[in-house]
């Protein structure tokens, strides 16, 4: 039976929560959203659950037709465990780099800003790369237009580093329109990425 979720007007992360709930109750659902961030978050959530997703855009509204995989797809116990990533994979999982501030270290802000620029530059030149970079709190400032490290981040992004940027933080700092690298993300993705990581490095 197809279940319909109308998430129009709902603020992040509600559309994802509603989607998660609906997927527990039905194998096929339709989610209606009215902004691209919500649509993208729902799409990614569904994809992470190995669901098939088809998207239709019309009149500023997106409809996501989501179908659960035939074999359940949820291979690791209860649904909640799946959402938070599979703990047993942790030792060999992806490397996650957490940028929780636009400064490196605490103490002197001017120095911290220089160190962060140095760090991101060096990261771009290093042989080893993180699989995912998470940006939150003032760390999101690094990902917007005018950021001194934007070129380095774009280069990392082009080399396959996934970048998730906290939407709440962009919103709070009034930077949502200026995001220049990475994708707007939410606490579900951030938590899931951290718990599913083999290694988390926090700057």
């Amino acid at each position, binding site marked *: 039976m197809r279940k319909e979720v109308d998430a129009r007007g709902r603020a992040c992360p509600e559309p994802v929560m509603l989607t998660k709930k609906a997927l527990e109750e039905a194998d096929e659902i339709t989610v209606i959203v009215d902004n691209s961030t919500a649509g993208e978050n729902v799409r990614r959530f569904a994809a992470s659950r190995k669901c098939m997703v088809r998207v239709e855009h019309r009149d500023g509204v997106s409809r996501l037709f989501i179908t659960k995989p035939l074999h359940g797809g949820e291979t690791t116990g209860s649904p909640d465990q799946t959402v938070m990533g599979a703990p047993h994979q942790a030792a060999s999982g992806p490397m996650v780099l957490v940028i929780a501030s636009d400064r490196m270290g605490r103490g002197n802000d*001017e120095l911290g800003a*220089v160190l962060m*620029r*140095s760090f991101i*530059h*060096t990261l771009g030149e290093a042989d080893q790369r993180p699989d995912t970079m998470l940006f939150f709190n003032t760390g999101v400032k690094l990902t917007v237009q005018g950021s001194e490290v934007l070129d380095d981040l774009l280069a990392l992004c082009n080399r396959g580093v996934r970048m998730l940027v906290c939407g709440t933080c962009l919103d709070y700092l009034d930077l949502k329109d200026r995001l220049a690298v990475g994708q707007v993300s939410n606490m579900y993705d951030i938590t899931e990425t951290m718990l599913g990581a083999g290694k988390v490095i926090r700057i």
Partner: protein
Amino acid sequence: MKSFEYCVALFDSVSSTLLAEKLLKKAEILHKVIPVPRHISSDCGVCIRFSPDLRGRVEQALTGRVEYREICAL
């Protein structure tokens, strides 16, 4: 003659580097603050990298305003 990819300006302190950066920004000279390359110095410093063809302008912008140790071509 070997052509160099970059030049870096080296300073005696981080604060001089930052002052130099402000001067270069003001003069609208394209540059980037980077860690001092390992083969130049092993201490944890920062320097300013720029394209060799900007060398004259960089020297002009910095001379007399901030002390720099040297400019190396890499």
